[in-house]
């Protein structure tokens, strides 16, 4: 339990996974956000993770950090909807190219990883408390 890096590492994992859940929520919320031109259509968000060494003395032990939230460059879906008030001159609207099923899978994966991090913290806390009560 040296200096309790487990809390920093699992905490960084929880922060990263909750950022992933946020991007999934944002992507799912904007499935139906159509626009009148391709350039301003919503781009699916994708968090970019990188491992980050917590303690230079232990270079093999790393937490995770969200380096940036990237906008995916997939082309928006062009749909012919002349009745839509947002349609352009030719009657087309542009919907973001988001696969809701892939987003749900991403969400479940993030949720499982978050649960694993919570379990790490609980076990680490329990062991640290047990260590504190040695001899009592």
């Amino acid at each position, binding site marked *: *339990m040296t200096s309790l890096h487990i809390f920093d590492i699992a905490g960084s994992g929880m922060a990263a996974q909750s950022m992933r859940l946020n991007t999934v929520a944002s992507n799912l919320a904007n499935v139906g956000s159509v626009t009148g031109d391709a350039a301003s259509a919503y781009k699916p968000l994708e968090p970019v993770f990188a491992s980050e060494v917590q303690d230079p003395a232990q270079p093999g032990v790393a937490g995770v950090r969200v380096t940036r939230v990237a906008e995916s460059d997939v082309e928006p879906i062009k749909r012919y909807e002349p009745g839509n008030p947002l349609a352009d001159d030719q009657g087309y609207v542009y919907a973001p190219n988001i696969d809701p099923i892939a987003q749900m899978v991403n969400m479940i994966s993030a949720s499982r990883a978050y649960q*694993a991090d919570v379990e*790490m913290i609980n*076990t680490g806390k329990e*062991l640290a408390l*047990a*260590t504190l009560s*040695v*001899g009592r």
Partner: protein
Amino acid sequence: LDGNTVDAEYEHASFARAAVEYRASLNFVDGRVRKLMTAITGS
């Protein structure tokens, strides 16, 4: 499967194993401390 080299199940299992081993070591240390305390205080 997804190009990731981390096997989550394996890591989970080895985490649980490490926690149990830590607990076992802690039990031994705790027993030793208690024994010494009994020897010192005599009660």
